[in-house]
């Protein structure tokens, strides 16, 4: 239960929270987005992890592709060069008898079909000999261009070999064989390119799927957080849905059990406090009744008799000493009567349960209004039932009393406004009390009197809410008391008569 100091402690963050509330709403969407992509989010981390593995795999695959392509190209080029050499030397040998220009053209023509090499034929004078072949065909033979970096990674060193064409001892030209890896590289690029595109698309799909999947898997976590927050603000009715994942399901099961246990403990606590209050109230009422009816009657008789003695003694010729004693007895009785009245006032407002609650409250307001330069009290007390049962009646009475006294003593207010109404909502009716002052506001730390914190206990034991908060130009004490229908009928030991 709350101690006076803790009311103040609650109030300070309360205010700060409210001050921060406005920008938080505006930035709420941004905040959610930020949190969503934050590196601290488990989901983002999981996706980033998968992405890292993907990238490593891609790098490895790339390296392997490059290595394989390099070897393959080197082998291809070597074999092509060998073939070209063979073909050139064969051609030269076979075509010894042919006229020189024809020979050269024929060689050129032959070699266009050999892949991975480039043959240049030049006559004796060094002019290039071109066969009749369509230059387009030459162009077509060239494979699609690989990007320069790719060629650079793969290309073996260019090999060049010159074959002098010697016929009958006479050199008629030169055949230059140049290794030409670009088409091979192009092929490798084609292959790599297709692979990159496919794996990229595939990975995007996988990552997207994972992102959604993690989102669904981790969805219970924010719900768990919300649930814990609920428990924090004493909303013990909160229960979580059971997620399909075993691990999270275990957590939510235990959460629900813990919430249930807390709720049960809270209920037990409340019913105990309620019993305690009822017992205390009953005891006080019995004591008060005894003092009111019995002691009051006896003191009356005592005073009357003492006064009678006093009057008789005064008439006696030598009754001075008797009247003196009698006077003392009268004075003593009056003192005891005064004490009796004060104890009664402290114990319990005797009119409560005897006359309608509203009249008791108005009497209270009249007593407290404007006394000794205190603040004026404005009241707006709506229609109330004559009684809500002894426990609720006394709670309402004490709340109003302590709330007003608190405002009068500590707020330095000019005006206190009290509103008290019964609220009837379907299935639940309640008493709403609001006491607003125009005083100095909440002091930090707030010192709630013993009376007020006692009221908080009472109100909470009756499942009500009790709130002290700063309001524009003062403080508002807001109390809500739910009404138990059965109890509101006034089926109580001191069932009011209202005759």
């Amino acid at each position, binding site marked *: 239960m709350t101690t006076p100091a803790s009311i103040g402690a609650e109030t300070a963050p309360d205010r700060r929270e409210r001050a921060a509330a406005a920008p938080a709403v505006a930035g709420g969407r941004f905040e959610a987005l930020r949190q969503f992509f934050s590196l601290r989010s488990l989901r983002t981390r999981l996706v980033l992890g998968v992405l890292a593995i993907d990238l490593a795999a891609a790098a490895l695959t790339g390296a392997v592709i490059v290595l394989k392509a390099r070897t393959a190209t080197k082998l291809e080029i070597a074999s092509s060069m060998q073939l070209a050499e063979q073909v050139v030397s064969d051609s030269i040998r076979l075509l010894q008898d042919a006229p020189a220009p024809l020979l050269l053209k024929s060689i050129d023509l032959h070699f266009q079909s050999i892949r991975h090499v480039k043959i240049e034929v030049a006559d004796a004078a060094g002019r290039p000999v071109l066969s009749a072949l369509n230059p387009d065909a030459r162009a077509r033979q060239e494979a699609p261009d690989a990007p320069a970096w790719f060629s650079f990674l793969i290309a073996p060193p260019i090999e060049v070999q010159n074959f002098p064409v010697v016929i009958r001892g006479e050199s008629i030209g030169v055949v230059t064989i140049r290794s030409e890896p670009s088409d091979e590289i192009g092929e490798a690029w084609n292959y790599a390119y297709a692979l990159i595109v496919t794996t990229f698309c595939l990975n995007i799909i996988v990552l997207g799927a994972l992102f959604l999947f993690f989102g669904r898997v981790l969805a219970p976590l924010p719900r768990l957080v919300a649930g814990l927050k609920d428990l924090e603000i004493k909303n013990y009715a909160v229960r979580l849905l059971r997620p399909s994942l075993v691990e999270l399901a275990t957590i939510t099961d235990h959460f629900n059990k813990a919430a249930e246990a807390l709720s049960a403990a809270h209920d037990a606590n409340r019913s105990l406090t309620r019993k305690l209050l009822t017992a205390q109230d009953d005891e006080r009422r019995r004591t008060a009744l005894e003092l*009111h009816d019995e002691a009051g009657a006896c003191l009356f*008789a005592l005073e009357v008799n003492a006064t*009678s003695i006093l009057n008789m003694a005064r008439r006696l010729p030598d009754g001075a000493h008797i009247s003196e004693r009698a006077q003392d007895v009268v004075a003593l009785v009056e003192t005891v009567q005064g004490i009796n009245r004060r104890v009664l006032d402290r114990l319990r407002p005797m009119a409560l349960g*005897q006359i309608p609650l509203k009249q008791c409250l108005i009497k209270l307001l009249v007593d407290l209004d404007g006394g000794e330069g205190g603040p004026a009290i404005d009241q707006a007390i709506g229609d109330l039932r004559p009684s809500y049962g002894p426990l609720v009646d006394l709670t309402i009475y004490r709340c109003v009393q302590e709330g007003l006294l608190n405002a009068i003593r500590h707020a330095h207010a000019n005006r206190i406004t009290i509103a008290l109404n019964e609220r009837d909502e379907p299935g639940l009716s309640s008493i709403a009390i609001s006491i607003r002052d125009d005083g100095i506001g909440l002091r930090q730390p707030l010192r709630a009197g013993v009376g007020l914190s006692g009221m908080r206990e009472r109100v909470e034991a009756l499942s009500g809410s009790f709130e002290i908060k700063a309001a524009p130009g003062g403080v508002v004490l807001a109390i809500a008391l739910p009404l138990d229908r059965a109890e509101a009928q006034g089926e109580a030991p001191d069932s009011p*008569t209202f005759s």
Partner: protein
Amino acid sequence: MTSVLIVDDHSMVLQGCRRVLADMGIEHVYEATTVVSGYRAFLRHHPDVVIADLTFQGDDLGGLSLIRRIASSDRKARILVLSMHNDPAIVSRALESGALSYVLKDMSSSEFSTAFEKVQLGEPHLSHRLAMQVAMLRAKGDDSATKDLTSREVQILSLLGKGNSYDKIAAKLGISYKTVTNACSSIRAKLKINTLAELIRFAIYNDPGRGS
């Protein structure tokens, strides 16, 4: 010879009352200890004065119904309530039911004697303190025109109705002249009254401090 009926369920109170009455020279006293027997005794003896408690064993404020029954059977019945209940709302109810006076059991017996003498003559009597409380309660609690007034304003209005000047009101209440004038303009605003003359007229005919 004045006859008195005392209805109280405490023998000590009965005895005490008899003592006071004896001191006043009244010996003709009837007693009853329940509401029913009290009413019967009243019908049989028709006493000049009835002294009644409000609280009876197992019947809180049962005295109120006794007062009502007596008052309705005899409009001229002179009833004095002697009770421990000091709540003005209860006092008010007792007076509404037909009591002429209300005395608290823990007031001095001289107060009781004074009240009894008044009642005997058929005049109402209420101690100053109780009268004030009842008046305040009525001013605040009733849905009357004056319910919005503060207790200070009620006091001022009441004094105004009795013909006091602002100076006198200020002196009587121990407040400044300025406070009185401010209160009067506040009262006028609340009652929607424009002039001082109208305000005084209102105070005379609606004296919120007139009590019972």
